[in-house]
């Protein structure tokens, strides 16, 4: 995965939003996005820091991609789900585990730590107002430290951002081919 710290905002070849929305780097819509170079740069930078860190601390890359696939499924976005399913396959995660993530909490059984994480994913994505301090204690009981809970929360919340940006860019793209 490319590290984007040195990439210029004009470089859209590795831009996940443009790629998933089917936006060509030289298109009118890519130019409109590039009017806010810091938004393009740090949307991708957030993606890289959360889903493709060079040295992942706390949550593994596979755990991060499982969270992402789960949010994509909850939000009903097939494009994002395909993207993260592919990422899990590339990371060597077995099909049965991927099915367990997609069908959670039904489907194949997942390891307890991942199940605890996915319960949190479902709550934060569908009903963030229902979260309580006890839910964080449940994560801590599964071995997640404060820093890992911060990372997990940022990841889940970023994915809510990503899907909303993606659907708008996709809709704009239908009229800016």
């Amino acid at each position, binding site marked *: 995965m490319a590290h984007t710290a040195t990439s210029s905002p004009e470089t859209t070849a590795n831009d996940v939003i443009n790629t998933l929305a089917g936006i060509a780097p030289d298109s009118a819509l890519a130019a409109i996005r590039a009017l806010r170079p*810091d938004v393009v740069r740090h949307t991708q930078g957030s993606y890289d820091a959360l889903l493709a860190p060079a040295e992942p601390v706390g949550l593994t890359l596979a755990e991060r991609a499982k969270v992402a696939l789960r949010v994509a499924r909850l939000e009903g976005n097939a494009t994002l789900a395909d993207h993260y399913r592919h990422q899990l396959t590339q990371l060597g995660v077995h099909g049965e585990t991927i099915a367990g993530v997609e069908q959670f909490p039904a489907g194949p059984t997942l390891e307890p730590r991942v199940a605890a994480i996915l319960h949190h994913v479902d709550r934060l994505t569908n009903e963030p107002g229902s979260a309580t301090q006890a839910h964080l204690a449940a994560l801590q009981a599964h071995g997640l430290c404060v820093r890992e809970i911060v990372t997990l929360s940022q990841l889940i919340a*970023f994915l809510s951002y990503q899907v*909303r940006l993606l659907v708008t860019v996709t809709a704009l793209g239908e009229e800016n081919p």
Partner: protein
Amino acid sequence: MTTKLKFTAEPVDWVAWLDTLDLADATPEQIAVLEESTPTAKTSPYYLLLVQDVDVLRERSKLYNAIMYGPRGLPRAERELGAVATSRVNGCVYCASVHVQRFIQLTKQPELMQRLLDEGVDTPLEPRYRAIVDYAVKLTRTPNTITKADLEPLRQIGLTDAEILDLAQAVAMFAWANRLMQTLGEPALPTK
């Protein structure tokens, strides 16, 4: 847990549910990211919690500032309106309080904001604000149903594609911000 606060245009505090970083233990990198996040970050429990994953906070703060404060494009007040509508739908009392105050500073329309807080996003609005709030609400509730037809009301009030993108980015940013504020701590009445 304390009793849930009602929506308010008055300032409210925020209390973390997890241990925040003691500034005395912060690395130079963490200090730098706090300083570039927001002027009050070094005394804010929210930022002192988030800075424990410093790489993510660095990106997020730069993104947030670019979306909400970037020059030109959709007027800043209307980005704040998108933030308020999103926070009202998601039930984020803290975010609503902060961004209602920003909107009022920019537009001097406290009555409008009070109605939005009291009555919700269906309260009567002038056509331009109505179109902005409607898009914010739909993008917040059901992003999987957004199509190009949903952009039409925004075009009819005169928004360019760049301004539509500005609105969507503000709404999406608050899908993110609300979830952090609602699930890592809770709003509290200020201690005087």
